[in-house]
């Protein structure tokens, strides 16, 4: 039995397994980023790799999205996964789903060392989800609320994360 491209038996099995053994679920994630010259970098995560660059307007080569765009992409992807999970759990078939995100930096001058006002991170991010699914508006609204409140990346951005930065000379 399949819904939204997911195998329902497999999904149920995964959820059941985690319920029975919450300690066994992966809750630490790793990434490694190698500098490639200029503003380019290659990120490695498990057996995957992706490039990071800056646009020409920021003296980059514009060969890949930049880091703050990956943040938006990560949030959008996370909400997509959550929406599909929550809809599937309720048996709601999704025909189409697309998220549009926009982030506004608080003060980019701070990043460039040209100002001490504010901070160079996102001040606010707006997310708009376009959904085409077989469910009434109230159900879709519930799924969306649940998705947003339980989103790992959403929570990462909305709460304070403790950063542990260390530098080592090799």
């Amino acid at each position: 039995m399949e819904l939204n491209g997911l195998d329902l038996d497999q999904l149920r099995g995964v959820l059941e397994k985690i319920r029975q053994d919450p300690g066994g679920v992966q809750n630490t994630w790793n990434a490694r980023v190698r500098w490639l010259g200029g503003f380019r970098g290659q990120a490695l995560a498990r057996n995957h790799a992706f490039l990071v660059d800056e646009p020409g307007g920021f003296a980059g080569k514009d060969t890949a999205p930049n880091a703050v765009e990956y943040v938006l992409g990560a949030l959008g992807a996370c909400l997509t996964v959550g929406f599909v999970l929550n809809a599937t759990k309720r048996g709601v078939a999704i025909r189409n789903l697309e998220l549009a995100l926009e982030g506004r930096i608080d003060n980019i001058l701070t990043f460039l060392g040209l100002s001490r006002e504010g901070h160079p991170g996102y001040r606010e991010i707006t997310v708009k989800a376009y959904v085409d699914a077989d469910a009434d508006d109230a159900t879709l609204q519930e799924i969306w609320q649940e998705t947003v409140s339980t989103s790992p990346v959403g929570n990462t951005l909305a709460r304070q994360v403790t950063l542990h930065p260390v530098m080592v000379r090799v």
Partner: protein
Amino acid sequence: MVNLPLFPTTVVGSWPRPPWLLEALRKRQAGLLSFREFQEVADRAVLDALRYQEEAGIDIVSDGEQRRDNFYSFVVEKLDGVRLMTLAEMLDYAEDKTYLDQLLRQLDAPSYAIKNPTAVGRLRLKMPLALDEAQFLMRHTRKPVKIPLPGPYLLTRSMWVKGISDSVYPTQEDLARDVVAILREEIVRLRDAGVFFIQLDEPILTEVAFRPPAQVRTFMCASLAAAAQSPVQELAWAARLINQVVGGIEGVKVGVHVCRGNWSTNEGVLLQGDYGPLLPFLSAMRVQQWVLEMATPRAGEMAVFAPYAGMREMGLGVVNPRTREVETPQEIVAKVWEALDYFEAGQIYLNPDCGFGTFAERPVNTPETAFRKLRAMVEAAGVLRRRLGDRAVKAQAAPPQAPSPSAIPPAEAARLVREEKALLVDVREPWEWEMVRIPGASLIPLGELLTRLAEVPKDRPVVVYCSVGQRSAEAVGWLRERGYPRAVNLAGGITAWIGANLPTEP
């Protein structure tokens, strides 16, 4: 022959669809309804749209485009070789994905909801494009009918997508040849069926002419690739395509409709600019009528028509289809009064700026408000007829004016330049010169001509031109009085030159 009153009232085409028609359209697009089943639902909607127009007193009616998802992509139902692709499907082929994202933000829509008719194979007619629409409409009304068709430039630019279409049609020009042939046959077919008025919709001409910032472009300026050519070349190409479609066809009124976008009720996101940059090309198109926006202030001042006065009939946009408030008959009369400075009474038709439901899912007004706007138009026409006399006019274009003896047609002008080393003098303004000019011409604006006569030799023929031949006629008069017996005027100006497919630059 159809006898129409002075100031005939008509529509641009579309009417807001009822919810049950939209539901049927969605089912049709999902393959849940057959073509026939959908048409039966649409029949009812057409009759409703027609009733609104007839009750309002409209003289030339349309079927409200109720059978179409929008004014151009409906052709996928009628043609083999075209597929309605979502922007999501086309994203991989798009050369400018940033532009697409901006577009979607502006439209506040996801890529899966925006569809484009895309050429995926050789075009072949499955059934006539609009003959079914025309025949049904004519069975149910005694009024003359208007059938809008997507113009050749719009269809070519939207359907040709690099990476998808080029395996069959290597270039846009290759696709254009088939598009032109299909439209030409359709016009003849509609004419033979008794259609009075065929309107070629070319809304993206404004996008080409005004080169707007990305955030106000529409997705129709399709092909997703930036236009390879300069705006002037694009517009000249559009005019040539129109002429290839309509050239030599008689017995039916053909108009061209241009607007600045009709997909949002937010006027701020629609294009802005007067007809100045477009008129050299509109006047090169061998159509009988321009169907133009004039109600929205974004269409600019009517004074730009002065050099083109009376050249074509004017389908004057007198009500804004997107606003809630209904224009008063007095306002409409005032608008027409202004147009009478540039067009004969017998040349002016009254219509809204655009359709009321260009895109099925995005109507810009309710049927009730649309009806009241049509009603105001009809009342205004009544006032005007009483003022100017209720004489019927034959609804045919005025015969072209005979060239004056000192005027010569484009081919003769080209020969004089080539064989007799004639000097070409352009008496327009520098901004017009920058847009388009004849290679080898010298720019001497009319106002400077008499002080710069030293630059005009007397031992060679002189061919003078402007946009349409009015300023240059004056210049030729001056030159002949001052010892230039071989000065001649290019009849119809650079407009006629472009229409004759003669070279221009840049």
